[in-house]
């Protein structure tokens, strides 16, 4: 296993020249970027540009073909990597929520800390209670996912990831499956999180949100980062024709 020699001055996530193919199809063609602790970065781009694949590579849900991804000093592209150690540090929220339908909201949150971190039931219970208050669902804690709206499910999913005390949170188009009016409640939750200093990597189509919240924006198309920069310069002063075209379509 990689020796964990990460210090806070180094990037918490460091992606370096990552290539990834599904069979013949190369979806990531040399992606590099760094994320410092406490930063919020947004990855935007047209469908099929490899955004989701990229974010899934960071917690080893997808394996990369070449290059390097370092998360808190752990090399993801290492055959001897202990994936469980990596995933304890990286939380992930999915587009389709993926709550466990046979468990209540509270049980969904409590499962991983109890089974994986082997924390005591009392500790986990009080932690889960405070998390469910944080996502403003204390009145729904005993509901099953099937009884919750999409926005509520997504907030439970965020709380479930936070229960593992991750250092980095990955959000994979978390509002894409939601109704416009419930999008806001999820975005507010993520905003609170960012305000507390959580490192967040978001794949999103919410441009207004990206602009408001992100420290840095990366625009990807066909497997490469076309353009990146802080939101102000990115949105006001895009250089690349592809970025301009994308922004003109979406804004």
């Amino acid at each position: 296993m990689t020796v964990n020699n990460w210090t806070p001055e180094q990037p918490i996530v460091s992606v370096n020249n990552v290539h990834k193919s599904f069979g013949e199809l190369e979806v990531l063609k040399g992606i590099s970027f760094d994320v410092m602790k406490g930063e919020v970065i947004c990855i935007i781009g047209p469908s099929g540009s490899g955004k989701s694949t990229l974010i899934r590579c960071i917690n080893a849900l997808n394996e990369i073909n070449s290059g390097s991804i370092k998360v808190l000093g752990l090399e993801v592209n290492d055959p001897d990597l202990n994936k469980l150690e990596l995933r304890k540090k990286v939380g992930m929220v999915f587009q389709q929520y993926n709550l466990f339908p046979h468990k209540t909201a509270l049980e969904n949150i409590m499962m991983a800390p109890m089974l994986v971190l082997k924390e005591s039931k009392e500790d986990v219970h009080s932690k889960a209670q405070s998390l469910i208050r944080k996502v403003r669902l204390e009145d729904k804690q005993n509901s099953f996912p099937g009884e919750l709206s999409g926005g509520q499910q997504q907030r439970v999913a965020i709380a479930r990831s936070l229960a593992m005390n991750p250092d980095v949170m990955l959000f994979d188009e978390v509002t894409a499956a939601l109704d416009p009016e419930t999008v806001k409640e999820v975005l507010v939750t993520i905003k609170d999180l960012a305000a507390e200093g959580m490192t967040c990597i978001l794949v999103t189509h919410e441009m207004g949100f990206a602009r408001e919240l992100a420290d840095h924006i990366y625009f990807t198309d066909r497997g490469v980062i076309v353009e990146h920069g802080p939101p102000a310069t990115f949105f006001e002063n895009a250089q690349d024709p592809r970025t301009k075209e994308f922004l003109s379509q979406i804004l």
Partner: protein
Amino acid sequence: MFNYFQKIPGVSSFPRQTDLPVLLPYQASSSGDPVDLRFSRWLASSSPWVMVLLFLVISLYPMIVLAQSKYTLEDAFYTLWRWLPFIVGSGFVMNILISFFTMLIGTVAGVILGLGQISVHTPLRKFSWFTTQLFRNSPWLVLLFIVMLTFPYEFEFGDRIISIPDWMKAVFGLSLPIMANISEVVRGAVMSIPTGQWEAAESLAFSRTQTIWKIILPQSFKRMIPPWMNWYAILTMATPLVSLLGVEEIVTLSRQAMEAEDNHPELLIPFFGFALVIFFAYCYPIARWTLKLEKRYSVKL
């Protein structure tokens, strides 16, 4: 002109017709089911009156055909009546017993084999797959013959000799195809859980064992019950196969009873008809229940 619209009872009073191109309503095929329930569907689709009809045919047919015979219908049914406690008590009970034990062994072995089929350990997965396919695609009767004729009738444990009764060997023989089919039921139910569940568990640092036992199996368990019951009904129907090998169950004993009654041909229909009715009466409720459970469990999320 074709009728493009399905008639919906209570909604459409008459079939609407059009000669315009129409996008037909999407009909979910049963291919999404973990394992199809053809047998249960077929059995449950018959009306409960089938049993009454069977009974009437059994009673009336010989009355018409054998009206002139000396050995009257009354005699035949009286004979059946006299043998009934024996045929049911020693015969049909044996069929049920065989079906229970077969299902027990088949389920335990099938679950193990099914979990083997989803193992990450490649040789184990290949072995489980091969075993499943082998026994799933073999004729039951051939498997029965192999087990009945090759298995020893007794085992020696040191100085103790444990004899294996015929019916127990039949149980082993029938367990093999049941095991293979339950293995497919388990695999199918596990595969029917959306990949998002696996990914969510993985991203929370669950180990594979934890993912399977805490997340996947609890969800797939409900989906296994209807096909499992379907296989139980099929198995019960297949238990008379063992009569070919001399195991004393309902068909064997019915034949023995008829022989003891001088093999009057008039006895055939009452005796075998009774076997039909009793199997139908046993399996029909199971089939109805299976479909009911399937309907309930198919509503997901």
